[in-house]
């Protein structure tokens, strides 16, 4: 078991290293000369060459990579080219706001969709299944900005229950942001839940058809008990990975929804930074997203191991 964890952790670190290299290379490959894009069209040649020097663009790429990754390991992501503030603090501020949405989304999406998925699985091919499956298919197919726009139309314009956009900046307090969190979270939850519902449904159907559930039923256990004690843990297992991937997607993939709601989160910061070619900020966000991705996957793997005795012992029996 220990070696299994060590192997997984090692793979995670390797993945992180690789993604840091890819992030660095991808940012270098952004179209448009960095210095002119940052300074705008009024830039004088002097200013451009001074900025190139400041960004160390005259140095070889690998040297710049080592500089950057060395700083990042110490939590130093450099200074923003646009605001001149420390990247770490700025990214942290926006990340905190996004975490608020992510938390609400995960609560909505994960609990709601697991319950719906199980219901659909248990009522396979009957009307609750048809309804849930159809709705989740629609949720999966419609892009999040459409879901977001429909929600704004219904709950901000037609029924003025929630604000349509956030008018505060990134320094807004949790209390100020709270009323504006629900619609973005719901939009993300709809898109995200669809996958979890499908996965949970399939797992429940598989498990309920398995021999040990049949055995448990034959022993005379109630359906409720069979489902909660025997079927659920096994059904959740494959669902865990889908949940982990979706949580990771939340961290990086909320850009569109945050822009529709003008929500001061990491997605909005990322978009603005790409447009301004604010390299240190883009690199920091990309690296942090990679960390979240890897950590979520690692957590899913370890969680799966905890739920599945076979996986737990595989290291020994092989």
């Amino acid at each position, binding site marked *: 078991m220990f070696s299994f964890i060590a192997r997984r952790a090692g793979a995670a670190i390797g993945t992180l290293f690789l993604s840091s290299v890819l992030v660095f290379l991808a940012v270098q490959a952004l179209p448009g000369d960095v210095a002119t894009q940052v300074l705008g069209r009024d830039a004088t040649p002097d200013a451009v060459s001074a900025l190139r020097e400041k960004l160390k663009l005259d140095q070889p790429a690998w040297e710049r990579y080592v500089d950057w990754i060395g700083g990042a390991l110490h939590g130093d992501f450099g200074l923003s080219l646009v605001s001149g503030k420390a990247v770490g603090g700025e990214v942290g501020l926006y990340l905190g706001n996004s975490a608020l949405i992510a938390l609400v989304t995960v609560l909505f999406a994960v609990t709601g969709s697991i319950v719906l998925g199980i219901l659909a699985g248990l009522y396979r091919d009957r009307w609750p299944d048809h309804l849930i499956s159809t709705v989740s298919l629609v949720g999966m197919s419609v892009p999040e900005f459409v879901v977001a*726009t429909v929600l704004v139309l219904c709950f901000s*314009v037609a029924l003025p229950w929630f604000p*349509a*956009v956030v008018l505060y900046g*990134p320094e807004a307090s949790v209390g100020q942001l709270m009323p504006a969190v629900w619609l973005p979270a719901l939009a993300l939850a709809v898109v995200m839940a669809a996958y979890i519902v499908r996965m949970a449904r399939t797992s429940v159907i598989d498990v309920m058809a398995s021999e040990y559930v049949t055995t448990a039923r034959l022993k005379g256990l109630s359906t409720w008990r069979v489902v909660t004690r025997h079927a659920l843990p096994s059904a959740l297992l494959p669902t865990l990975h889908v949940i982990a991937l979706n949580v990771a997607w939340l961290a990086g993939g909320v850009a569109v929804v945050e822009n529709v709601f003008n929500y001061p989160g990491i997605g909005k910061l990322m978009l603005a930074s*790409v*447009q301004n070619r604010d390299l240190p900020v883009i690199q920091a966000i990309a690296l942090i997203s990679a960390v979240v991705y890897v950590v979520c996957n690692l957590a899913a793997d370890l969680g799966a191991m905890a739920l599945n005795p076979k996986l737990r012992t595989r290291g020994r029996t092989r």
Partner: protein
Amino acid sequence: MPDIHHPGRRSVLAAATAGAASLGASWLLTGCTGASAAPVLPTDAKGGSPDRGGTLRIARPPASDAETLDPASALSAYEYLGALYNRLVRVGANGDLVPDLAESWEPDAKARTWTFRLRAGVTFHNGRTLTSADAAYTLRHILDKATASPQAAVLAPLIDPGKLRTPDARTLVVPLKTPNAEFPSLLTHYNCYVIPDGSAGGIGRTGIGTGPFKLESFMPAGPGRITAYEDHWGGRPVLDAIDFYSVADMSARSNALLAGQVDLLSQTNLDFATARVVAASDRATIARVENAQWYVLPMLTTEKPFTDVRVRQAMKLAYDPEHVVKVALQGAGTAGWDNPVPPSDPAHITAHPKHDPEQARHLLKKAGHEGLTLDLYTSSYDPVFTPMALAYQDSAKRAGIRIRVKTASADSYYTQIWMKKPLMATYWYTGRPVDQLFTQVFRSGSSYNETAWSDKAFDALLDRARQETDDERRRELYGEAQTFVVEKGGAMTPMFADRLVGLSRKVRGYAEHGFEFDYLGIGLRGA
């Protein structure tokens, strides 16, 4: 980014994200409100008199995280400037110069030295009285290399900062390096707002000016608040306060308006689909700023085949601007006929060659470019670019010109495409006095000369015009300059478009033209 595209640089933020998103959103919204496909845009801005008091909420696209309140800066938070500051002179509704802080101005006989007489009893928000030293300091601040003001390039060839004179507290004397009868018009630029003497270090945060509003709070790319300045020389504004919010995404801005969270979308040209949705809402409506945007298809005169003036003429004769106005603007604008001086400008002349595809074909044949095929670049930077390109493509077909429309990325459009690709779409704001327009965009070697056109005879004509002190004669010379540009220049100007501004139905006294916005008169009904 240059001043000319100043408000445009904001729409880039919106454009990139909104691109797909707003398309979907507008489609959805149109579907939901059941608006018909026919344009039903109101033609009048909300007039009528507002109630005194109230707070106006304005959503604006932020310039950048490095925004500042220093008017001279390329990164100024433009929407605040007209409320916080005044200039010496400004542009009136009919295009003529009218007094702002200067109550009068006059040149010497040769238009070589200009004397400005300042208004009495004007105070800054910190209580200090305005003097000519402040006006002189403002000019020096713009010319200071450390400020890196976009307007410096325009003023530096004319003014030696060391030679400015202030004989008394209300008189500013500006000796010019070369005679210029149109000099005051250069000071109408929004980089030229007057700031207090010695304030360069802090003006970007304090925003202390002589304008109708004073600053309460400001955060770069974030929210801010300004309140009525009771002692404003022109009287107190109607409103008690204005709240500014920065919303980068275009569809987010219109959602905020539709949901009643804001009252006005500042400096935003709505696309037609969104505009129709806004106009159909019972909370919001559309105001039009007539001919506010000047659309151009620049041909780089240094690139083949545009080095040949016959090809440039053929490109212009080949298409019908009326068709482009109809298709790209759904009629909300005026045909330009390749003359960049807007119809609302007093100097505008109406003479222009007719649309003539046969003549265009003939010219191309003579130039050896029969069956010309060209790439025309556009992007989602502005909602009108691509429809304009497609309308041109369609219209020019009759002259045997084949256009391939290429869409480039919006966020690097003005660094990678503009002034680099031989043929592309772009726009400017109108409201620039005629001498400034020709000097900045058409004179040999000027920094915004987007067609790289260089014609000694044209430059000489401009020099003659700006030195001519007889107003009637000068107007004639600027008329000749327009004919020159239409016949030989590299810029195709298909049209002037109305800007579609979204505002709440409560807003009264809204008035905007060129770069001028009436902060004094705007207010709310039922405030």
